[in-house]
């Protein structure tokens, strides 16, 4: 029988090891999330990231070595972003019905999400890299990471900030909307979708179908609006 070390050397040289580890960590995260009754704080992605970082640190593996395997999963981000057109198309009928309200809320929400995050982080003395990385925090992760890369931020930090934003929106958003006495399911869903993308949408869907549909619509539209507006505004202000 081969020495364990030989097996390890062989395994760590193929992309299969870290690819499999990534899938297993995510499955573990999913399992925990379901066991908790879909509690947003036990986000499967965050759990998977924590597990993987622990494994890499314990085994002394460099991120580059890990990514050589995990890049096959990472690659699918682009095609998945393109595929977002499908749910957007399915929800698009809603846009025609109340175009003015949707367009106005989209613009106001998209601008508020980016400027308030950048403003607060900057005033509180965050590093320039952090300020750039938080700008697209309300946009769905695949698009936000693309934007972070485009602006010169850290896509990895953006991924984490996007997920945390989603968790905050999903957990605190409905309470805030109750406090503000917003009872219209369309407005509730749309606001949650603009502020907290897919994680908020998943929560909205659990509560009300109309809210879920408007949340999904808002997420798709905000991805497009922020992708167009944010780089232009960035060039104007910091260019």
């Amino acid at each position, binding site marked *: 029988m081969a020495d364990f070390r030989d097996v390890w050397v062989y395994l760590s040289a193929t992309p299969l090891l870290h690819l499999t580890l990534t899938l297993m960590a995510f499955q573990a995260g999913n399992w925990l999330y379901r066991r908790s009754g879909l509690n947003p704080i036990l986000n499967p992605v965050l759990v998977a*990231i924590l597990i993987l970082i622990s494994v890499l640190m314990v085994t002394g593996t460099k991120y580059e070595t890990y990514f050589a395997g995990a890049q096959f999963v990472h690659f699918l981000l682009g095609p998945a972003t393109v595929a977002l057109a499908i749910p957007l198309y399915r929800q698009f009928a809603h846009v025609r019905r109340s175009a003015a*309200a949707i367009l106005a809320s989209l613009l*106001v929400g998209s601008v508020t999400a980016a400027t308030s995050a950048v403003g607060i982080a900057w005033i509180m003395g965050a590093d320039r890299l952090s300020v750039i990385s938080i700008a697209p925090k*309300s946009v769905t992760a695949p698009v936000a990471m693309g934007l972070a890369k485009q602006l010169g931020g850290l896509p990895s930090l953006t*991924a984490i900030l996007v997920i945390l934003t989603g968790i905050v929106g999903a957990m605190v958003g409905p309470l805030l909307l109750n406090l503000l006495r917003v009872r219209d399911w369309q407005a509730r869903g749309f606001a949650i979708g603009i502020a907290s993308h897919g994680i908020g949408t998943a929560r909205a869907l659990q509560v009300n179908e109309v809210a879920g549909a408007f949340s999904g619509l808002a997420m798709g539209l905000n991805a497009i609006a922020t992708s167009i507006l944010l780089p232009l505004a960035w060039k104007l202000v910091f260019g």
Partner: protein
Amino acid sequence: MLNSLTLIFFCQLMGELTVTAFGLSLPGPVLGMMLLFAVLLWRGGVPRELAQVGDALLSNLSLLFVPAGVGIMAHFGLLRHDWFPLSVAILCSTLATIAVTSGTMVAINRLQAPRPAGTRDSGDESDG
């Protein structure tokens, strides 16, 4: 299945090429998404096969940002320095966005309502 996958990859490729060729500032895949959206509008529906491929990609969307997220391990120093401003920014900005967005939508719906606001049943699914 292969047709739909090809269409999706083709849209992304076109998006990336256009962005590079014209020096546009939006991410290539987002332009690809807009292209696919245009194709769907033009066709007037989502072909079943494309829906299957798309749903398969999207049903596990969150798995796809795990590898990039692990990259944070190279930036623990930055996190240690900035965790507080970033946390405050996330909390306040997310709440502000929800308040402002819902407020805008409610206000415009009220302006457009044919009858006085008091008689309108919000939460109603009917047009108007």
